[in-house]
């Protein structure tokens, strides 16, 4: 049986961005699962980390670290969408 029988469908399947998005979705779920497990383990050990994290309010020092990390990440996302630097 031939892939030529379904050319439109096959073209969609061969879109690497779509496949990469699902691969990342899988990895995201694995990390979310791990976080849930981590919270459960710590709670069993007497540290109710889920509740502690939900209610945690970052202080000034924490906020500076988080803000800087987020801005760096946002800049990396924008850079990835720009023309590659090594072509300039």
């Amino acid at each position, binding site marked *: *049986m031939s*892939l030529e*029988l379904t050319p*439109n469908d*096959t073209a969609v*399947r061969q*879109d690497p961005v779509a496949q990469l998005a*699902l691969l990342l979705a899988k990895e995201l*779920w*694995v990390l979310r699962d791990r976080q849930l497990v981590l919270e459960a383990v710590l709670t069993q050990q007497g540290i109710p980390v889920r509740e502690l994290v939900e209610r945690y309010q970052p202080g000034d020092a924490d906020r500076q670290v988080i803000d800087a990390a987020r801005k760096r990440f946002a800049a990396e996302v924008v850079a990835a969408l720009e023309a590659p630097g090594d072509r300039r």
Partner: protein
Amino acid sequence: MDFQLRQSGRAAIAFLADLAVASSRLRPKVDAELLARGLDQSTLADDLDERLRQVDAALAGSPAARAVAILSEFSSVNHGRVGQAAFDEILPDLEPTLRELQTRGPATLEARLGELPEYQTRCWIHRTTGGWDGHPYQGFVHGELVHREYVAKNYPGDIFAQRRAVLGLLPRQDYRRILEFGTSSGHYTMQLAKVFPQAEIWGCDLSLRMLEQAQRVANEHGWAWKLFQVAAEDTGFDAASFDLVTSYIVLHEIPAETTRAQMREAFRLLRPGGDLLFTDVTQYSVMDKAAQRWAEYGAVHGGEPFWREAATLDLAAAARDAGFVDVRSEGFGGAKYPWVTYGHKPG
């Protein structure tokens, strides 16, 4: 076999299984779009290839069809990879047990195959990365992880209970020696051992990796299965030496002519009065055109080059041609799946 996956492997397999279930819910939407475009039982092409092209053109630009394509491609490519990765995480803990289980006995495994038949190497079966034997423990990966944790959650009903239930069709309980074609990792063989505890059970398969897992399963339960890596259509076993020859979900993995050859071999191997029972996928003859199209779609993109041959082969005629009588070929228990073919060798 007792084992525990690590967090990453467990979560990844569960995610793929849920993704496939969610994807299947898009299918009615795609079918509705086909109907809205005027494609129904009367307008869908009779020719299967033409129908695939017709539907493909009609669904170009359909968001639902696009989603199905993306999701099914991801599942097809990644279910094997995720299973292998999950296994590799536990291999250091599990390997001593696997080695001991394989050598403990009483089951035996003999590799008699020279070269694999061409049909077995034509593509990576089920699009399993590296091929069907592409991992040193592929039998465990497929049998214990992919089949139990992924496939079983994507097929209707209890696929393990179905393996046991079809054996209720057989007219005898006193089989002394049973031969299974396509033993794989031993899921059906287990049911044979439970339903016919007095029988000596032989199994054959083209895949050594699968048979190694079957051997572990047998040894764990104390079952003295005799396992052989041979082609079922040419076993080399003695004529008239079995009372039942049976297979489960094998026929769509082999060409129609090989199925015919396996039926002839089964007839040769059976003692007079013996029985044949082959179970496989639903025949197209009882499916409407839209359902046939989905089966074809899955075959084209899912590493199933012989599905159409199996689903359109007249299995009853093939059994009669091989010499069997009292032949029946029908959906099991009034359903369309699984599809059972029974034949009797005259006494």
